[in-house]
């Protein structure tokens, strides 16, 4: 880039002369105008990546860039001459790059240099500024500091906020934003009627106190965490990770500070005295896809997992696009490839496998056992019992002379082997029988296993195997024998003896490598000669319980693994196989002989005798005759005797084994979940050439990138240190990224509109000072997320109208200035939850296993939808299968959750319209809403139904014209359905809920969280005025005769019939409202009966029984409203008669869920109710339901129902 400067002056003159004069006045901003061009067009060859750097020129550092930039003198700057050149050999960027710089950008660069070429470091890597609050002219529009920043920028452009949104819009907007659900009519009315100055603040507080808040926030976080209920990739089995999702909900609802939220998820396992909950949080790191496909290279995928964890960490918490640096130094940001692997190293250090088990359901290690309280107690008791077990002293042999001891030892024999292999009989395809010491032996192919009949030992059972083998060469890996279905394809579950690098290794395994005990000999076994081998195991479930003997002598071993918490049985391959294993390396050309299996631990003496009886006996006798036996020999004899002869020990062993078995049983039943558990020894990490698992370059240690502040030396250099480093108040990225994320959640787009990229290629903040101010404030107030969100929604900016003028749309099409409230379609989850809530179908419970709504039947990998409740849970509980996610959610732009995503696309396609018009969930919800309103208002009240339906779905009153449209659709549809009864039957059969057309009116009682109350509403209101006698709740519907016998029992006596009440009030003197604790979960599967003796002293709406949310049809209610009223689920039924004031009356209401019959009885006599008969339902009633359902189905698609406005 040295020549050609001489033409610059001339060229510049021609090029710049016209534009230069006009443009020069405008100040060019390096961050806004110049760095994006340099980064995007130049850094590929002249950026941080030293490997790709051309001409030793870099333009990402000021000093280096000023080699080709002369401040104030564009004519003298080679940068300018090169981008202006029309010589194909000279021009930059070179044509073959497919990159170019536009005329406007060329001008900007020239102007910038002419103005002095001010250079700034990239903002995001610098410390946050401490901005002062800008002053604004329209102080009346400032609700809090956020408005100072937004409004001052607007005012500088002669703009201002829009007018405030209507209260109806506002409550809809904020209720969705904070809870993901629509406001109910009574909530809307309550807010509209509250004219206190802090009405909105109170509303926000109420929403944040609701459990729905945590569900809403968790739903968002699940994209970031790439949460899925299946492993992903190709086979994509189910996995058990939902307890982590519930942890997130709890964390948000308890308003866990953000720094703690991050630390626990990244490194909860490393916190001092970590609780189970803190360890559970680290499941976050394991939610990446996992592989099981046969024949895959284990290490290739293990590396992929670590890579995913590392990149998710960078994207989610620091807005760094680390991915580039996996293969080479980052092209744009100052992150080297080495630094990538230094970060990788923090996430590398767990005992995991790159493949999960195909043949078993083992949870990939490391894991956390989720024990319930009962199980924890059992484990505690059994463990302390085990600790107390002491081996009995050898009383029987104490004082015995050596000679006597030896004599007894040599005479006492343990049980015979349970299996001895006859190699004359076995022998597979290429297995030739050979000969060893006159006994048959097998020569193995390495591909064909010799199967035995025995060997299915449990981990608490002692066992041993002895054999002779002859290896032809020093094997790098060879399976000598095993009991397992396969190697990686079964996580090696079972036990095995391998040759590894010429040494013997013996292991008992639940899932390799994280749940196993394993030892390996220090010595290499001899090759090309017969060697006697024995492996013994004492049932202690610890590595020291495994012994390997070579030629009769106990071999020195190293402990490789020493943690076994789950069974080694199951999964197939239940008996021992010699010489080969599925997709493993067999004992090719090896020979075996004298193969024996014992269901007990062989003593050292026995193993010695097996190897060379004559020599051992001689040696022992010589020793004995020579002098006192050595302690070692004596203890060997004692070991033999205790294992084989001693009765005392027999009893001790049995007891020990039984306690161990009990402990194993408890642990085997406990569910496990994948978590992080740091290995004590750091795993080696390497720079990988082009990111490939098998191309290791330089070894690296864990470290943080140099461009960011160094880690405090007091912190441990592990994941915990990393998490604490990242959440240091002064870290330039973390708080900004978090604040930006929540801003996006509330305003639709972040202040940095590329939340995944805060680097040089990312978007600049629209309001950099606001971002820093919010981040500072967030950190200063203890990373309080609820406080931060409240700040945002309390701002005037949030409370504006979203209506936009054409002029403003032109000035600011992307709404970066926020001169109006943002408007966009709600996320997929909210669209579905909205219709569930509106229709009253929503089953509003917290947590638990994933559920399968209707749409999963139409997924690419279909699942059978649930029956009942699972269809109506909030969408964050929908079963997520990576290879075939919920199709409606996908059509509505839900994230795929293959990788970490911090922002969703918002697209629009006819497929979305089809899903919302025809999807069973939406169709059924429309019908349920229709039924609900018809029950409530009666079919005559068309105006009330139209009005409520519109309000429920849009939160506002319809205009006259809108009502007209609804009424006219209703009447057209009513006429149509009246003329087409078959269509009515079909339409009303969509979905499982309350199947009018098929089986009469089935009742459904939604579950709620309320306990039963007698005499008042939960808020203490609606007090019953009068006295109570006996009052009971039964979980079956009583027949008329049963009610009669119930009524015949006086009010102060206990009912002693066969049917026992589910709960019963205390007998008189009562009359005060009563609350029954822990009755929220009472099960009503068939139906119910409510009974009470009452003596009302005044007419009015006093409650008798109450288990309902005020204003909602979500439970049970028996009261005196309008006479005698019974609400059961979505049915509101009035009795024919009511109790008389001042008199004792026995009141009963029954509901039979199956038949849908609801009945009242006063003093044992029928007092009305509803006895539905589908055949008796008039065509008119049915047509009315269907017609209103089609109106509801239309309104569900209304823009104001689906769009944030």
């Amino acid at each position, binding site marked *: 880039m040295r020549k050609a400067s001489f033409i610059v002056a001339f060229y510049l003159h021609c090029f710049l002369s016209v534009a230069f004069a006009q443009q020069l006045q405008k100040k060019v901003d390096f961050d806004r105008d110049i760095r994006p061009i340099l980064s995007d067009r130049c850094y590929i060859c002249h950026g941080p990546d030293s490997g790709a750097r051309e001409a030793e020129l870099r333009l990402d550092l000021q000093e280096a860039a000023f080699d080709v930039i002369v401040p104030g003198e564009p004519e003298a700057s080679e940068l300018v001459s090169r981008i202006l050149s029309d010589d194909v050999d000279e021009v930059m960027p070179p044509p073959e790059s497919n990159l170019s710089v536009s005329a406007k950008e060329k001008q900007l660069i020239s102007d910038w240099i002419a103005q002095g070429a001010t250079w700034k470091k990239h903002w995001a890597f610098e410390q946050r500024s401490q901005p002062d609050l800008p002053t604004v002219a329209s102080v009346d529009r400032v609700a809090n500091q956020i408005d100072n920043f937004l409004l001052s920028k607007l005012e500088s452009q002669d703009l201002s906020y829009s007018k405030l949104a209507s209260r109806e819009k506002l409550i809809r907007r904020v209720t969705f934003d904070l809870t993901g659900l629509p406001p109910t009519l009574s909530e809307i009315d309550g807010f509209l009627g509250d004219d206190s100055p802090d009405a909105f603040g109170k509303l926000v507080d109420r929403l944040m106190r609701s459990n729905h808040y945590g569900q809403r926030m968790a739903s968002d976080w699940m994209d970031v965490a790439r949460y899925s209920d299946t492993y992903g990739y190709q086979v*994509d089995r189910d996995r058990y990770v939902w307890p982590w999702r519930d942890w997130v909900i709890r964390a948000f609802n308890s308003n866990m500070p953000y720094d703690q939220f991050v630390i626990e998820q990244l490194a909860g396992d490393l916190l001092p005295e970590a609780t189970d909950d803190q360890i559970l949080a680290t499941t976050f790191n394991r939610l990446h896809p996992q592989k099981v496909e046969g024949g895959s290279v284990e290490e290739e995928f293990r590396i992929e997992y670590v890579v995913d964890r590392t990149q998710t960490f960078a994207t989610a918490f620091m807005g760094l696009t680390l991915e580039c640096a996996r293969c080479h130094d980052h092209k744009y940001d100052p992150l080297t490839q080495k630094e990538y692997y230094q970060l990788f190293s923090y996430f590398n250090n767990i005992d995991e496998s790159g493949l999960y088990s195909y043949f078993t359901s083992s949870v990939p290690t490391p894991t956390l056992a989720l024990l319930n309280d009962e199980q924890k107690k059992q484990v505690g008791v059994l463990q302390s019992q085990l600790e107390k077990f002491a081996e009995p002293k050898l009383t029987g042999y104490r004082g015995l002379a050596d000679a006597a001891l030896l004599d007894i030892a040599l005479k006492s024999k343990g049980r015979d082997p349970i299996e001895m292999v006859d190699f004359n009989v076995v022998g597979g395809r290429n297995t030739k029988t050979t000969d060893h010491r006159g006994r048959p032996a097998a020569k193995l192919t390495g591909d064909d296993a010799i199967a035995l009949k025995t060997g299915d030992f449990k981990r608490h059972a002692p066992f041993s195997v002895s054999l002779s083998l002859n290896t032809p060469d020093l094997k790098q890996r060879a399976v000598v024998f095993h009991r397992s279905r396969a190697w990686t394809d079964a996580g090696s579950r079972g036990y095995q003896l391998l040759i590894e690098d010429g040494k013997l290794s013996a292991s008992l395994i639940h899932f390799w490598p994280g749940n196993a005990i394993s030892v390996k000999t220090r010595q290499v076994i001899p090759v090309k000669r017969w060697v006697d081998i024995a492996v013994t195991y004492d049932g202690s479930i610890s590595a020291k319980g495994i012994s390997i003997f070579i030629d009769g002598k106990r071999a020195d071993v190293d402990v490789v693994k020493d943690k076994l918490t789950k069974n080694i049985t199951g999964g197939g391959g239940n008996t021992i196989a010699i010489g080969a294993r599925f997709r493993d390396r067999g004992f090719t050309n090896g020979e075996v002989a004298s193969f024996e299996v014992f269901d007990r631990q062989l003593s050292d003496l026995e193993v010695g005798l097996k190897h060379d009886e004559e020599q051992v006996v001689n040696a022992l006798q010589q020793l004995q005759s020579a002098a006192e036996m050595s302690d070692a020999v004596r203890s060997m004899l004692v070991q033999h005797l205790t294992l084989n002869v001693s009765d005392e020990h027999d009893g001790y062993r049995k007891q020990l084994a039984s306690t161990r078995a009990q402990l194993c049983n408890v642990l085997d039943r406990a569910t496990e979940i994948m978590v992080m558990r740091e290995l004590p020894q750091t795993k080696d990490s390497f720079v990988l050439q082009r990111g490939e698992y098998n191309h290791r370059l330089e070894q690296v240690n864990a470290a943080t990138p140099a461009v960011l502040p160094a880690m405090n030396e007091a912190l441990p250099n592990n994941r915990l240190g990393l998490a604490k480093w990242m959440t240091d108040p002064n870290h330039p990225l973390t708080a900004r990224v978090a604040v930006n994320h929540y801003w996006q959640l509330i305003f639709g787009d972040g202040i940095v509109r590329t939340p995944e990229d805060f680097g040089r*290629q990312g978007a600049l903040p629209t309001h950099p000072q606001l971002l820093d101010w919010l981040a500072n404030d967030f950190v200063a107030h203890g990373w309080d997320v609820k406080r931060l969100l409240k700040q945002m929604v309390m701002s005037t900016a949030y409370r504006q109208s979203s209506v936009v003028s054409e002029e403003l749309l032109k000035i600011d*099409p992307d709404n970066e200035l926020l001169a109006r409230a943002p408007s966009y379609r709600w996320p997929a989850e909210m669209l579905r939850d909205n219709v569930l809530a509106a229709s009253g179908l929503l089953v509003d419970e917290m947590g638990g296993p994933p559920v399968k709504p209707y749409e999963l039947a139409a997924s690419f990998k279909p699942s059978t939808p649930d029956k009942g409740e699972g269809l109506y849970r909030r969408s964050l509980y929908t079963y997520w299968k990576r290879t075939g996610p919920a199709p409606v959610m996908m059509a509505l732009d839900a994230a795929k959750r293959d990788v970490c995503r911090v922002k969703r696309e918002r697209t629009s396609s006819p497929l979305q319209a089809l899903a919302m018009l025809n999807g069973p969930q939406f169709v059924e919800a429309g019908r349920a809403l229709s039924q609900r309103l018809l029950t409530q208002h009666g079919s005559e009240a068309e105006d009330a139904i139209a009005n409520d339906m519109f309000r429920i779905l849009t939160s506002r009153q319809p205009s006259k014209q*809108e009502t007209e449209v609804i009424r006219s659709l209703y009447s057209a549809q009513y006429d149509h359905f009246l003329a087409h009864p078959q269509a009515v039957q*079909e339409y009303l059969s969509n979905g499982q809920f309350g199947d009018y057309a098929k089986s009469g009116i089935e009742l459904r009682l939604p579950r709620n969280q309320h306990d039963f109350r007698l005499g008042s509403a939960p808020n203490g209101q609606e007090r019953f005025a009068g006295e109570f006698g006996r009052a009971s709740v039964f979980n079956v519907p009583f027949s008329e005769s049963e009610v009669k016998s119930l009524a015949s029992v006086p009010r102060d006596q206990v009912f002693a019939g066969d049917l026992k009440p589910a709960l019963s009030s205390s007998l008189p003197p009562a009359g005060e409202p009563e609350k029954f604790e822990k009755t929220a979960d009472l099960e009503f599967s068939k139906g119910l009966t409510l009974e009470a003796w009452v003596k009302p002293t005044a007419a009015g709406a006093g409650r008798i029984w109450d288990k309902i949310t005020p204003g909602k049809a979500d439970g049970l209610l028996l009261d005196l409203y309008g006479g005698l009223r019974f609400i059961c689920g979505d049915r509101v039924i009035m009795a024919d008669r009511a109790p008389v004031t001042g008199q004792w009356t026995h009141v009963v209401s029954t509901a039979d869920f199956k038949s849908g019959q609801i009945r009242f009885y006063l003093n044992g006599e029928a007092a009305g109710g509803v006895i539905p008969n589908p055949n008796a339902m008039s065509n008119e009633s049915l047509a009315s339901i269907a017609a209103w359902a089609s109106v509801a189905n239309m309104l569900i698609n209304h823009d104001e129902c689906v769009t944030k406005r």
Partner: protein
Amino acid sequence: MNLKCTGFDPEWGMSRRRFLNGFGMGMGAIGLSDLLRTETQAGDVSNVTDGALSGMHHAAKAKRVIFLFQSGGPSQIDLLDHKPHLNKVHGQQLPDSVRQGQRLTGMSGNQSSLPLVGSPFKFAQHGESGQWLSELLPHTAGIADDMCIVNSMYTEAINHGPGVTFIQTGSQFPGRPSMGAWLSYGLGTANQNLPSFVVMVTKNKGGQPLVSRLWGSGFLPAKHQGVRFRSGKDPVLYLNNPEGIDSASRKRMLDALDQLHHLQLEQQPDPQLETRISQYELAFKMQSSVPEVVDVAGESKETLDLYGPDVNKPGSYTANCLLARRLAERGVRFIQLYHPGWDQHGGLPGGLRNQCRETDQASAALVKDLKQRGMLEDTLVVWAGEFGRTNYCQGQLNGNQFGRDHHPRCYSMWMAGGGIKPGTSYGKTDEYGYNIAEDRVHVHDLQATIMHLLGIDHERLTYRHQGRRYRLTDVHGEVVKPILV
């Protein structure tokens, strides 16, 4: 820096016409120019010089692609790559000089012996071009003079998941857009009432599992993801009205919705709402256009006979091939068929015979049918799997029960029409059929070539995501010029 560079289309400013173009429902080539213009407006001119380029990067030979994906890895040695030498060395061990220490899968990698297997099937030359084809492909033999057989394909992937993901998205790992999504993004479609990228999977076929992300849009807007046509009454997800709602009811409901939307629109102009209105219009149109395209009642007996007896079996490969032609006629840009079951680790002779029985006639019929209708010249038909199979035996070499393991080092595929040189073959493997001897074609090269035929420079159709530009071919790929007309 404008947010549009990052790929998140704001709904604001989305005019109705842009909506039509943008959602895979647009007016043909307007798609690309529209896209380029959008980028220019956004201040990102890196893909184009100052406002110069509109339309294709160069003249397109093909207007559409039908990709007949043979999932599982068809055995090239038994179908397309004639290796007589292998029959001579049948039963011998794979020489180390041939294997050259390359990695094998975990399935046969630990096998003690690797005996070579010659093909039990007869090969013969066909057509004027004299192309060698196996006796398992009698119908394909009939189009020998229309096709170009590539015998020198290779890939890096050694297992199905990564392999299929690689050929469909250019990366072995999940997360990138598929080829069809890229083309939808670049080109749009010529039919407003149908999606630009349609996928069909043979029904009730076992074999290696397929996953929906293979036709996903990755980081491209979701509107570009493949729309799967199912066999049965709902070819597109929830296309049909629910039970009890006839088209008159539906019309009334949509009219009412439209009235409400227009009442809202009267309050204030709103491009976002206009988009929504047209979304419902299109949905209504699709409710008739899709059933029309899947209804083959109007096809002549000759045509139906050409495809073979399974043509009347909804969801069969044969039925899907005929549907592919009907979709192509109606302007769908990228039609992807998947036929699983080519994973013959064991029992290869029987398994392969069965696979060919299911696919041979229909694949050939599709090419013939397109040719008869004058559509072959601008329709590119691609027949390929994710990798090939080993020349050695997996498991026991025992009569007709032998199998072949995955082999990424070389494999065969064919293409026809759309600017591909007919009646040719390209690339050679060594006499063992283990390594490529001449003219290697990498998966990225194939992708570059397909895009080239559609008038797209694969290096220039890029999308900005997470701070960098992505393209289908990563940073690789060369157009295979010798096989082009």
